[in-house]
């Protein structure tokens, strides 16, 4: 592989629980990826703009507040509008199983639920990202 995989770890919405996002960011870095973390309270527009500006291969969304069904579709729609839907989007947090099919339908590549090993996330990215 020519260059490092670049990942934007993002916290959309008002949820402040970022332990998982930070642990994942650190694990991805340790696995040799370049990682940008947005910090808290990002709007879908801010996340999509940052992803395009930073030219990332992957966006990792983290949400535990239950707002995923509102925020994730907005992000996917904006990516499409800006012709950036080649960026792979993965998600994690408290996302009930019933919501998974709908989120996969709008193009989220994988949903990682609590208890996921960071190694599984790393492996999934390495196997599925287009660089």
């Amino acid at each position, binding site marked *: 592989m020519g260059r490092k995989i670049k990942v934007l770890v993002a916290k959309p919405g008002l*949820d402040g629980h970022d332990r998982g996002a930070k642990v994942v960011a650190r694990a991805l870095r340790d696995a040799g990826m370049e990682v940008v973390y947005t*910090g808290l309270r990002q709007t879908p527009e801010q996340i999509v703009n940052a992803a395009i500006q930073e030219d990332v291969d992957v966006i990792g969304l983290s949400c535990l507040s239950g*707002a995923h069904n*509102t*925020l994730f579709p907005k992000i996917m729609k904006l990516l499409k509008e800006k012709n950036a839907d080649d960026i792979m989007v993965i998600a994690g947090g408290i996302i009930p*199983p019933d919501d998974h099919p709908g989120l996969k339908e709008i193009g989220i590549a994988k949903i990682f639920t609590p208890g996921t090993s960071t190694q599984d996330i790393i492996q999934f990215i390495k196997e599925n990202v287009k660089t």
Partner: protein
Amino acid sequence: MFDLDQVKKISEKKEEWNQTKVKKVVERFGERKEKFTTSSDIEVKNLYTPAEIADMNYLKDLGFPGEFPFTRGVYPTMHRGRTWTMRQYAGFGTAEESNKRYKYLLEQGQTGLSVAFDLPTQIGYDSDHDLAQGEVGKVGVAIDSLADMEVLFDGIPLDKVSTSMTINAPAAILLCMYMAVAEKQGVSFDKLSGTIQNDILKEYIARGTYIFPPTPSLRIITDIFEFCSKNLPRWNTISISGYHIREAGATAVQEVAFTLGNGIEYVERAIKAGLDVDDFAPRLSFFFNAQMNLLEEVAKFRAARRIWAKLMKERFGAKNPKSMMLRFHTQTAGSALTAQQPMNNIIRVTLQALAAVLGGTQSLHTNSFDEALGLPTEESVRIALRTQQIIAHESGVIDTIDPLGGSYYVEALTNQIEEEVMKYLKKIEEMGGMAKAIEAGFVQNEIQESAYKYQRAVEAQKEIIVGVNQFIVDSEEEIEILKVDPELEVRQIQKLKELKNNRDQAKVDAALKAVREAAQGTDNLIPPIYEAVKVYATLGEICGVLREVFGEYQAALI
């Protein structure tokens, strides 16, 4: 505490036992782990004897329940007198729905209310704000104005229940709304009992629902201390919270160190603002986490009580024993719950709740088994409440005070936790206090380091989580999850619109102007906020004014 000749003999005998009996067995069969440690990386020995606590002085270090240094409990009779307050953190959707849940919980024997607000409310936005989209009513109840608060407490006599409100940055506004509801019910302020969390420092460290920068935030808190010391004598003005610090990944030692560090900062600010320590310190309360390592948790609570008592007496010169009593609420650890085999969480919660009870908690929230998957259902929250009731009424552990006191291990661990906490507090002191240590990112880094270390230990199977990295089943049974109706956001926004059309706008404008003037000056902010709340100025409007005057906090990225 012991006959020193005896202790010497015990030490020698223990050494001999280790060298002969133990060594032989370990050489042949090994032990389960190379090294045994607690969550705080304190080494756990194979056996504890009087030798490990030989230099303790019973009267000085432990004393009696209800007496300095309160190691064995803050009250003389503890849970023999009455059980802790059983307080389930609850709230979702609209005020109507949450009101129903509260009445259900009270009917089921809950003894105090605990209000969960949604994120827009916690961050000072009305439900119609752009940033509130998708968040209204999700993690708690949506409160835009006094009108919602009136519905939330409809039919609940505020002189009979005590209410804990998990609210921080806009705590002053929610407290004023609560006072206004009381006034309408004809309940005088001196009868109100309960707690506002009101702990902004841990928001910057761990939880993220801050609004204003630290300096004005701390001023609001001091204003609340002052106002309540005169008007709401039974109200806990702050709940200095380690819970979220622990959830963010801190160890037990870090939880106590950073929580008490925050406590020190609040006390110092209030004293600097001219308050007498004994005027406000008796109303300070604490909030801790109960994690899985049962005995370390018990030791943690005991150590925290002793450290705080000493700090208040020796450092701040408190005279009133009530100022030295660390009273605390406990919540079982949300982060310990697993989405895998969720029924196992009932057992986890039981052990954690037991730790809190053995540690002498004043109030307790037990998590529901489905919380790694969504909001609790009526069934799961009832089981969580029953867990407390079974410990209280069937287990017998509360029939004597501090039953683990005197355990060689628990006492040794209590001492070690105190020692490690004091090292942290010294370090924070050298950095110029907690606000400075937070600004420098020190506290956040320490917590993140622990969180990452734990995650790696789990992945390396050095920490076992049943059902997650061992004892896995192939197919998980699906359980019912509570869903919040997305339509309620629309209804809440509609209600807000109607409120704004029907209120006296001139009164609102004048009240908001008074809030602005108080914020710009040095007058206590609570009276003008109370007036604004009463004429139905919204939470978003009041916070908006304060945002303009105080600015907003920008977190540094690390």
